[in-house]
C-alpha cells in the first residue's frame, strides 16, 4: 500500500488509485465535477488541482513544481508529497468557481437539484458571494432529451459525465457535445432520444441541476427527504439502492455504491418500478372466510385462527398433503419464520420456491461491448431472492418440489392444504392452472399484496407488504446476502409480514430482522456473519 503525504499528513492509500480518490477516501473534501470513479478520467473541470513535489531538473532537490496538477489524473506513487491547501491552489480554485457561475442562471429556488447540488455546495464552501461579471449572461436552452429526462443546459457545468456514461457504461452513446467554447451544450443526435435501460443514472451523476428526472420533477425539495438503504427487488442482480421518502410516501429510488454488484448504477426498470407501492387497492387487512362469510379478524386473534385451522386440518388429513409455497419476493427471514411455523404445525410439510418470474434474456452493459468488460447487468429473473429462499428450504431439511410440479399436484387434487405467498408487483402473477385448482385446496392461505383470483378462493388472506415497508435480507444472483431496511410504514391497519410471521412462529415482541438472522445462524452460518444492517446511505457524488 503506497503512502502519500497530503497537506503534510501521511495517508495510506490503495495502489493503482489516483490522488483525488485517495484524498476523498482519506476524508479530504476536494471539489471536483468531471471525475467520477466509474468513468474515464478527462481532467477537464480543473477543480481538483494540487501542487506536487518533484525533483528539481538541475539540482535534483525535491521542491514544489512550478505548475499545478489535476489530482484526478495523477496516479499515486509511494512517497509522493502533494498539497491542496496552498495559496496557488486556492487562487486557481477560486477562479474556477467564479467561472462556473458566470453564465449560470442562479435559479436554485426553482431547481430540483437545490440541496444536493455540488455547484451550490462548492460555491458556499469555496466560492465568492459576489460575481464580477456585469455583462449579459449567455443563455443556453432547456431541452427535452428523452422520455424520462430533461436537460437544462443553462445550468450545465460541462463536466461531460453524462456523455461518458452513455458511451462507457450504457454503451448506447446517445449524448454528445455540440458547439464550442462557452456555447458548448450537451445534446442528443437528431431523432435519437436518450432512451436506454440505464438512462436514469445520468441524472444521478449530474453534479448540478442540468439533467432532471421528469418523474421526480417539482415533486419534493430534497431537504425534506429521508433516506433508507435498501435492495432493489426488480431482478436478481440485487442493486443496492436508497429509498427517498417524505411523510411515509416514496418519491424516488437512487442507487447506492455497491462494488461488484451494481457499482454506482441501477436500471430504470428498478428505478421506476416501485409505483405499485402506493396503489389505493392494496390489501391491508387479513380476511378469514367461513363459507360465504368473510370477516376481518383483529391482528391479535389472527395467529390463533390460522394455527387452529391448520391443526384441525392436520388432525383430519395428516400433514403429507400440506404445502408451503415461498415467494422469491420474500426476505430470507420471512421465509425462515414461515417454514418454522409450518414445520411445527405440519411436520411433513413440503416447502417450495414459488413462481419465479422470468422476462427475456439477461442484459449486459455496455451493450456495445457485446458481453466483454461487463459494467452492469439486468437479470431476466425478475425477483430478488430465489437463492435466499432456496437456502432456507435446504436448511429446513424438508423435501421440496418444483413450482410446476406443485401446480400439477394441485390440479390432481393432491394438495389438501397450502400456504401460498405472492407479493409480486404484477397482481395477476398466478398461472391459470393454479387459479383453476385453487378451489380444490381444502385449506388455502394466501399472502399477497393485491386481491386476485387466488385470494378470492383463499380461506385466509394475509396482506403482504411491499419491499419499501419491510426489512430483511435478499440473496442475489451472485449469492451475496444483502440486508435492507424499512423505509416507510405499511398502509394504515396493515401489519408487516415479518411481524405476524414472527408471532406465528412463536416468538414474542417486535420483529427484528437482525434478531431473526441470529436464530437462523444456528443452521445457516452465513447469516450470522452479516452486519446488522447497511449504514445510513451517504449521498454520494
Amino acid at each position, binding site marked *: 500500500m503506497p503512502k502519500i503525504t497530503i497537506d503534510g499528513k501521511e495517508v495510506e492509500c490503495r495502489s493503482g488509485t489516483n490522488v483525488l480518490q485517495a484524498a476523498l477516501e482519506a476524508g479530504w473534501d476536494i471539489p471536483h465535477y468531471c471525475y467520477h470513479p466509474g468513468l474515464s*478520467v*478527462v*481532467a*477537464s*473541470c*480543473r*477543480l481538483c*488541482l494540487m501542487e506536487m513535489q518533484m525533483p528539481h531538473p538541475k539540482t535534483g532537490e525535491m521542491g514544489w513544481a*512550478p*505548475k*499545478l*496538477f*489535476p489530482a484526478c*489524473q495523477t496516479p499515486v506513487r509511494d512517497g509522493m508529497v502533494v498539497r491542496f491547501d496552498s495559496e496557488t491552489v486556492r*487562487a*486557481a480554485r477560486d*477562479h*474556477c468557481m467564479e*467561472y*462556473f457561475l*458566470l*453564465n449560470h442562471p442562479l435559479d436554485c429556488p426553482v431547481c430540483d437539484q437545490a440541496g444536493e447540488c455540488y455547484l451550490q455546495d462548492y460555491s458556499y464552501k469555496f466560492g465568492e458571494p459576489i460575481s*464580477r*461579471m*456585469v*455583462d*449579459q449572461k*449567455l443563455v443556453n436552452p432547456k431541452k427535452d432529451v428523452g422520455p424520462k429526462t430533461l436537460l437544462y443546459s443553462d445550468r450545465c*457545468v*460541462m463536466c461531460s459525465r453524462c456523455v461518458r456514461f452513455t458511451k462507457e457504461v450504457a454503451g448506447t452513446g446517445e449524448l*454528445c*457535445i455540440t*458547439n*464550442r*467554447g*462557452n*456555447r*458548448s451544450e450537451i445534446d442528443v443526435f437528431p431523432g435519437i432520444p436518450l432512451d436506454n435501460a440505464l438512462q436514469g443514472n445520468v441524472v444521478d451523476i449530474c453534479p448540478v441541476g442540468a439533467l432532471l428526472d421528469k418523474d421526480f420533477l417539482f415533486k419534493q425539495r430534497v431537504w425534506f427527504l429521508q433516506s433508507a438503504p435498501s435492495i432493489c427487488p426488480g431482478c436478481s442482480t440485487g442493486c443496492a439502492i436508497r429509498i427517498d421518502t417524505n411523510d411515509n410516501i416514496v418519491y424516488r429510488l437512487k442507487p447506492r455504491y455497491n462494488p461488484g454488484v451494481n457499482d454506482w448504477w441501477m436500471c430504470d426498470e428498478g428505478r421506476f418500478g416501485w409505483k405499485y407501492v402506493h396503489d389505493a387497492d392494496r390489501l391491508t387487512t387479513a380476511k378469514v372466510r367461513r363459507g360465504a362469510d368473510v370477516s376481518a379478524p383483529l391482528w391479535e386473534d389472527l395467529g390463533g385462527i390460522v394455527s387452529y385451522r391448520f391443526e384441525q386440518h392436520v388432525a383430519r388429513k395428516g400433514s403429507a398433503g400440506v404445502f408451503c409455497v415461498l415467494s422469491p419476493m420474500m426476505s430470507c427471514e420471512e421465509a425462515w419464520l414461515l417454514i418454522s411455523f409450518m414445520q411445527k404445525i405440519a411436520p411433513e410439510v413440503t416447502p417450495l420456491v414459488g413462481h419465479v418470474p422470468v422476462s427475456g434474456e439477461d442484459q449486459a452493459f455496455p451493450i456495445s461491448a457485446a458481453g466483454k468488460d461487463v459494467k452492469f447487468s439486468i437479470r431476466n429473473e425478475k425477483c430478488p431472492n430465489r437463492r435466499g429462499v432456496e437456502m432456507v428450504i435446504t436448511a429446513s431439511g424438508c423435501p421440496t418440489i418444483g413450482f410446476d410440479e406443485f401446480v400439477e399436484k394441485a390440479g390432481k387434487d393432491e394438495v389438501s392444504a397450502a400456504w401460498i405467498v405472492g407479493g409480486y408487483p404484477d397482481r395477476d402473477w398466478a398461472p391459470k392452472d393454479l387459479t383453476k385448482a385453487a378451489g380444490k385446496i381444502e385449506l388455502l392461505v394466501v399472502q399477497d399484496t393485491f386481491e386476485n383470483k387466488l385470494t378470492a378462493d383463499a380461506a385466509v388472506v394475509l396482506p403482504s407488504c411491499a419491499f419499501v415497508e419491510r426489512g430483511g435480507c435478499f440473496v442475489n444472483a451472485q449469492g451475496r446476502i444483502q440486508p435492507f431496511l424499512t423505509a416507510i410504514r405499511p398502509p394504515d391497519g396493515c401489519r408487516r409480514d415479518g411481524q405476524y410471521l414472527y408471532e406465528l412462529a412463536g416468538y414474542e415482541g417486535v420483529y427484528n430482522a437482525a434478531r431473526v438472522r441470529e436464530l437462523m445462524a444456528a443452521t445457516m452460518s452465513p447469516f450470522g456473519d452479516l452486519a446488522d444492517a447497511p449504514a445510513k446511505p451517504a449521498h454520494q457524488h
Partner: protein
Amino acid sequence: MADYEPILLRNVGIENSTALKTYESRGGYRALRKALKMTPQEVQAEVKAANLRGRGGAGFPAGVKWGFLPRDRKITYLCVNGDESEPPTFSNRVLLEQDPHQLIEGTIISGYATQTRIAYIYMRVEFHEQFHVLQRAIDEVYEAGYLGKDILRSGYSLECYIHRGAGAYVCGEETGLLESLEGKRGWPRIKPPFPAVEGLFHKPTVVNNVETLCNVPHIIERGAEWFTGIGPEGSSGPKLFCVSGPVQRPGCFEGPMTITCRQLIEDDAYARGMLDGKQVKAVMPGGISMGILTADELDMKMDFADPANYGLLGLGTAAAVVIDTETDIRDVLANVTRFFSHESCGQCTQCREGTGWMYRIARRIADGAGRIEDLDILVEVASNMGMMPGLSICGLSDGVAYPIRTIVEKFRNEFEEHIRRQSPNRALNVLATMN
C-alpha cells in the same frame, strides 16, 4: 538579406511548380534516394543533429520527438499537421499549393526514419485548392513508385492519406488533431500518455508540422552541419515568415532566424516598409497567440529564444500582423478575444468560460462602455489560464493568455484614455440595458 537564397521556397513562383517532373528536374527526390540507403537510425540522428525545431509554434526538436517512440513498437503513425489556422499565418498554405512534392518527400523520409507504414496529412478544410493540388501530387508519386509498397525497391513501404478537418482551430493542437483524425470531437487529450507512446488509435504516433517536414529533405541532402550553419544557435535552419497588414508587400518570405521584426517589416527582401502615410503602432509577430510588440520593441529577433525577452510566449508561427496607428487598440483586443472565445474547444473551465467572459468585456470596451476595473479583470483572467501553469489541458489557452495580457498591459494608457474620454455614464447605461 539580399544574398539569402531560398531553400523551402525555391520552387515557388516557377512554372508548373506542382508537377513531379518539375520537382525532379530541380533535384527533387534525391534526398529520398539518399535516405533510403541510410538506416532509419542514421536519418533520425541526422535530423536530431540538425536540431530541427518544430515550425508549428512550440519549437520542439523534431529529432528528439521521434526519439520518444518506444523501441518495441509494432505500429507507428505519422501525422502531418496541416491544420494551419493561426490567424495571420499562411506559410503552410504556400508550401502546400506551390510545392507539394517537397512536403511529400519530407513525409516519406520522416516516415522511413520513424519506421511508419501509414502517414496521414491532416489538412484544414478551408484548404480546397491546396487539397486538390496535394492529392494530385500524391497520386503522381504513387505512380512514380515513391509511395506505396517497396519504395524504390528499398523494402520500405508507406501509404499516405489526406484527411480534411472540419474547421476547428483546436484541431491544430496535436492531440486535438488525433481525436479529429479518429473521427471524434477535436478535444485535446490529457497528457501523459504523449502521442509518441499512445497516439492515433492508441498506437505510437509522431505529429509534425508541414514546414518542419519540408526541411527534412534538405537536411538529408546537405547534412546537419549545413543546416545548423543557417541562423543563430538554437534556431537553426531556414524559416518562413508571413507579414500582413498595411505594408508595401505583404506575403510569405523565407530567411534565417537572425532577422529582427523590424527587418521583416522594413527590409527590401521582405515587406518593404509601411504603406505611404502609415506608421507602425504594434506588431503581433508570431500569429496572434504569442502576444504583441509595441513600435519600440521591433528589434526583437525572430528566433525561438528572443520573444521571451519581450514578454511573448514564443516565436509561434512567425507570422507578423502589423497594426498601424490608425487602428484602435480596443478593436484589436475585441477581435483577438472574439477569435479565442469562438475557438476554445470548451473542455477546460478556465478557457471555456474565461475566453467568453473576456470577449464580452473587450466587446463592451470597444463599444465605448468600458470601466477601468475591466482592464484588471482582463489581466487577471488571462493570467489564470494556460497549460504551463497547469490550469488547462492544452496550449490553446496559453495562446489566449499572452496576447490579451500583453495587449492590455502594453497599451494600458491607451485603454485608460479611451475609457476616460467616454461619456461618464456610458458604461452604467450600457450595463443597465443589458440586465
